[in-house]
């Protein structure tokens, strides 16, 4: 299987070398290539990193970005138990109803609720953010070329614009962003989110954890998928081997 990965890599490298004027790379900065726990045919999500990433999302990203495809109950996959999930959900207030009297009412969140969105509508989110839309993050890792590496690249790509480049009022310079101009203010500072474990509380670590968390959010069944894939592959390998022998033996009489 490693050889397949290598083959795929070689093909990708060959294709990107051929790629005319590296059209896609030219749009943004060079994509960083970190090593992630979820890579490879048997890669899994690092649970500690997922939990840290979720914390960063709740305390930072979640202020502007919704994740409307993810439910509190899904947090079980991060290693939280039922009581912890209930406690997390209950921190948010949801409007429900109508009740028997036809009134809408407020209630605490439940595990069966989707992540509470920071804004009531796309319009409201754009109005609050200078006209820029903070995209929903449920599928962000799949909705960008480069996935986790891209997300990490954006979060660590802020800096001063080089000489001769103008950054418009209310926008920021980001080496990763296509066009290098981004509407999102640098969201993370060192020490901003306190971790319960002894992971370093740096922008670099926050970015890695959030990228891991968002990759999980966009592909929550990845571990199952790879597990089933290995079984299916091995079964087919044996089956095809048997069929090869059968075919060879059968045709030996003919040739």
């Amino acid at each position, binding site marked *: 299987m490693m050889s*397949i990965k290598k083959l*795929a890599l070689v093909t990708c490298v060959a294709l990107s070398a*051929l*790629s*005319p*004027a590296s*059209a896609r790379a030219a749009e943004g900065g060079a994509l960083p290539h970190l090593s992630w726990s979820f890579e490879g*045919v048997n890669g899994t999500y690092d649970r500690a990193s997922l939990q840290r990433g979720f914390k960063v999302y709740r305390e930072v990203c979640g202020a502007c970005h919704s994740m409307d*495809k993810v439910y509190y109950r*899904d947090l079980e996959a991060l290693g939280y138990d039922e009581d912890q999930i209930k406690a997390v959900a209950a921190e948010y207030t949801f409007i429900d109803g109508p009740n028997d009297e036809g009134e809408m009412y407020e209630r605490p969140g439940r595990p069966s609720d989707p992540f509470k969105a920071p804004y009531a509508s796309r319009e409201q989110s754009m109005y609050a953010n200078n006209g820029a839309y903070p*995209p929903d993050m*449920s*599928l962000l890792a*799949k*909705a*960008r*070329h480069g996935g986790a590496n891209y997300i990490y690249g954006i979060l660590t790509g802020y800096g001063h614009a080089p000489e001769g480049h103008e950054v418009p009022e209310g926008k920021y310079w980001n080496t990763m962003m296509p066009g290098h101009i981004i509407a999102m203010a640098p969201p993370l500072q060192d020490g901003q989110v306190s971790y319960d474990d002894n992971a370093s509380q740096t922008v670099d670590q926050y970015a890695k954890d959030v990228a891991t968390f968002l990759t999980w959010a*966009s592909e*929550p*069944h990845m571990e*199952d*998928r*790879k597990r*089933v*894939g*290995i079984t*299916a*592959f091995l079964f*087919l*390998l044996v*089956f*095809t081997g048997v*069929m*090869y022998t*059968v*075919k060879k033996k*059968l*045709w030996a009489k*003919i*040739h």
Partner: protein
Amino acid sequence: MSSGQRAEFKNPVVSWIDERLPVFSMMQKEYGVFPTPRNFNYFWNFGAIAMVMLITMIVSGIVLAMHYTPHADHAFSSVERIMRDVNWGWMIRYIHMNGASFFFIAVYIHIFRGIYYGSYKKPRELLWILGVIIYLLMMATAFMGYTLPWSQMGGWAATVISGFFTAIPVVGDMIQTLLLGGFSVDNPTLNRFFSLHYLLPFLIFAVVFLHVWALHVSGSNNPLGIDVKGPQDTLPFHPYYTMKDTFGLGVFLLLYVIVTFFFPNIFAHPDHFVEYNPMVTPPHIVPEWYFLPFYAVLRGLTFGVNPYIGLSLFALIVVMAPVYCGADKKTGLCSIICVVGRKYAVLLLAIAAVAFALGYLSQVEKATGGALISLPLSNLVFVNAKLAGVLAMFGSVILLVFLPWLDTHPVRSARFRPLFKTATLLLAIDFVILGYVGMETADAALFGVIPLLWIGQLGTGYYFAYFLMLLPWLSRNEKAQPLPASINEAVLKA
């Protein structure tokens, strides 16, 4: 079907059914003892593989339809619900999504096999045409399926592709409105696409049945392309080809499993994971990979037919006239054109080349605006670039229908026709190059210098020249190598 001779069955239940409805006799005749050429290579596996993929697509598609909501407000979310909450939903969806690609891979190899070994020639013309109809239905089905997840890419691809029809004069806009159920891609579009995406696979299944029926009338072609002379040339389909097909299928499924479970989104553009928004156009709209060569043909036609291009095409028709008409047509206008075409072939080809260059250059826009060279009458465009592109794109597919009459060489297999073999292998390479051109942005350049557009245009030129000029010319002029006396003899020699 098989109502004539029945086979004997020991099992009383089987025998009882078979007397009343001879399905067992039919299976025995068509898949049991069916005489099949003994010299198939592995290219002959892909019909069975394509059949398995069709069934895989129908079964997985029916399950997906149980959980999918064909409504503009819910489609994207319902697909995500399948991916996240439906038991094994992610697997069924990935099987379906990548299954489409693997179905096309199998069918493309199957079509190439047909061309390379001349499987479309007499008596298999109708069998071939039914195959082209299956391919057309597959394209329509795949295009509509692409739209159903209601993503940015799917919605905008529907906008772009339905826009092709607006190139048709007079009725174009009407056709687009009918196709979309409105003036833009919206809920009515999604509803009718879903309805047709569910219907067409069953039509495909019906045409596959006719395809197989026709195959079982004429019998299979084989790598030598010579007819079966007697029982010594054949083997019963079962167990020889059932086992060989199953082995080949296993290899194919291994690749399918690797992609489905380990690289499930390798064929998917990131804009597949953003919900469709009619107010935001994605920077780069691309169709699925299996349409890319035709997309390159469409984009390659950046020029229309003005008097110069028209003259060029006319000169080519005159050059080809003796090839098309044949020596037997010696009366009237046709004979005059044939004589001219034969006598002044070189001159006519030169005229065609020069006229084409003039017609092309007089339509190339300068960066500063205006044409690169200005010529009298060059603005008189009979067929504009958009319509020319759409005609070329549809034409490039429809041409396949006429293949049995474009290549009339008596020898089927490329194995004995070196020139045909080279030309056909070049066509396969050309097709891949066109696919690559279709994938890249319109202004991309190879190594930063050679515009891909030019490569796409050259590729388009070769594609049409292969079918319309090379094949008819080779049919008359290529001297084939000697054919073996029989399949059996060739097999024994090897």
